[in-house]
């Protein structure tokens, strides 16, 4: 085990996969200088400008060209710089990457990883702060991944690069400096799909992902001081999501809360809540609770931005009501 950052973990993942498979390459804006967040630092020196390709600011063609390059046998790692900018390439993601395999009757696959640094970080306003994982979870053909820990960022990114499906890979911008233990083994993989049990507890199941895992863990620690034990599930993969682990946990705690940074309306929490309600209503002892952002664009001014953030205290207060304290 080594203690490294989320950013270094991602860097190791890409470097290892590029060494392992000559068909893997990365492309996007400013990759040559290491990417906006340093998540490609040093790769140009090792792999050269063909495999670490600096592109024009042309999101549609970064994505569309990656589809073409994937169809002919390469494995692109597509850097979108900010998740918000991927919206300039939605046709290429949704109409082309996600559907090509199916529309063409399985003749070809589109093995590509679409990296989308996401989420609120300070003072970045409405076009640099969004969390849109629910949009992509809605699209047949796509896999959606949102790691929280450095270890998962390494192991899941490596698995995503080896996956033959197009994978929307959501890294939280507030997590780049987050440090954690990461296994040293050369082929450390985390499978796409299974969730991670971040904390055990008997009173309430809290399902969350990405940066909100950290917030939920803080909330669980606070709640424990008040005598409530919250089980925290880090979903890690949004599609397909780990129903088995969530169902098992809800069977034990009999209460479910879903927390995400994205807008609550139509968020992926609704899918989890509805699925649990459909299958497990008979075991629930309290109504399912969702916590997400209000349906408002993200503000620039700090006090306004704070209105959109979910805090550990809010989670504890909600959990407390749900548990009936």
């Amino acid at each position: 085990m080594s203690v490294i950052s989320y950013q270094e973990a991602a860097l190791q993942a890409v470097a290892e996969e590029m060494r392992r498979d000559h068909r893997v390459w990365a492309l996007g804006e400013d990759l040559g200088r290491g990417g906006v967040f340093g998540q490609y630092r040093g790769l140009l020196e090792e792999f050269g400008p063909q495999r670490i390709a600096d592109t024009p600011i042309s999101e549609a063609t970064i994505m569309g060209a990656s589809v073409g390059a994937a169809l002919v046998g390469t494995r692109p790692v597509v850097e979108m710089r900010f998740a918000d900018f991927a919206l300039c390439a939605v046709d290429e993601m949704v109409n082309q990457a996600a559907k090509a395999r199916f529309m063409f009757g399985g003749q070809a696959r589109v093995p590509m990883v679409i990296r989308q640094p996401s989420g609120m970080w300070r003072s970045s306003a409405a076009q640099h702060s969004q969390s849109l994982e629910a949009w992509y979870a809605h699209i047949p053909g796509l896999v959606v991944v949102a790691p929280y820990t450095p270890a998962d960022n390494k192991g899941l990114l490596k698995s995503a690069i080896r996956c033959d499906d197009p994978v929307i890979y959501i890294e939280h911008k507030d997590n780049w400096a987050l440090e954690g233990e990461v296994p040293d083994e050369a082929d450390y993989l985390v499978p796409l799909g299974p969730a991670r049990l971040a904390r055990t507890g008997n009173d309430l199941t809290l399902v969350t992902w990405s940066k909100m895992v950290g917030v939920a863990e803080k909330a669980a620690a606070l709640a424990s001081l008040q005598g409530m034990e919250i089980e925290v599930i880090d979903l890690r993969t949004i599609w397909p999501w780990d129903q088995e682990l969530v169902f098992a946990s809800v069977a034990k705690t009999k209460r479910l809360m879903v927390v995400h940074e994205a807008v609550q309306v139509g968020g992926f929490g609704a899918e989890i809540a509805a699925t649990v309600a459909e299958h497990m209503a008979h075991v629930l002892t309290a109504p399912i609770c969702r916590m997400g952002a209000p349906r408002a664009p993200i503000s620039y001014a700090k006090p306004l931005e704070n209105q959109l953030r979910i805090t550990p205290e809010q989670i504890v207060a909600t959990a407390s009501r749900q548990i009936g304290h």
Partner: protein
Amino acid sequence: MPNNDAHPKHNIDRDRLVELYRTMRRIRAFEEAAEKASLSGRVGGAVHLSIGQEAIAAGVCANLRRSDQITTTHRGHGHCIAKGTDPGAMMLELFGKQGGTCGGKGGSMHIADFQAGMLGANGVVAAGIPIAVGAAHGAKLLGEDRVVVCFFGDGAINRGPFMEGLNWASVFHLPVLFVCEQNGFASTTHSDAVTAGPGANARAESLGLEAFEVDGNDVAAVDGLVGDLIPRIRGGAGPKFLSAQTYRLKGHTSVDPGHYRDQDYAAAQWEKDPLLRTAADLRRLGVSEAQLALIDKGADAEMKVVTDAAEAADYPALEQAFTDIQDIGAPVWRDQS
């Protein structure tokens, strides 16, 4: 500067022109059969005909290797046939039947045949441009000497991916031939009415691409010019751009009567039908009426056979609606009926 004079008047070999004519005739026969099947309701959905534009498909693809690749549009039957896709599999696809190029999952607008280097038609205008560029980028990364031809229409040049894709091909010096089929229409609107400036070639040249113009109804001219361009592109000369002037003799789809066009002008364009023109050239080169009739009848007979076979074929197994979607997180089939 357009390179109109770059290619001297061609001296096409008679046998080669016969083969080009045969390709064009097969495309025409396929589309006439598809049109009939569409109008009678046996083929559902939109069928976009390229009738009148066959010389471009035939003249370009005659210069490609099987390992070369193309992308095409919603109006792509001709490009598929010219690149070597089996019309039988194509017709099965139009009918949504088993054995179609895509197993009945794509239909006319999503025909693909990767074995023949046909990387897919596309239902979104200009969407094939970045894909073609990426296929060429991939070839370069893998060290393969393939050329990629990207077909699109004059309606596509007003979409952003046109500019982005051409710039990309130019910046990365990729082996792509862009072929703009100027058929006069952007769906059911006259292209000229919605296109500013001096047009496609000027746009291409502004991005550093050498751009050429050709009479797209003259198959020998297309063949001759593309025959010069492909070896240059394969040899590392970078992307090239070709505007081929033609006319869409039919409506936007099989059911579009095209009332928005000047009817006299449209009728007069049938006199420039590339098939009539090529047949006349062949007669001048000594090809007999009997030989021409044999080609025509052969094409019609071939397409009758494939249409009858497609009609008689079975639909795909129901669980096919749930396959070929994804490895991770694929849906589980259950009978919905």
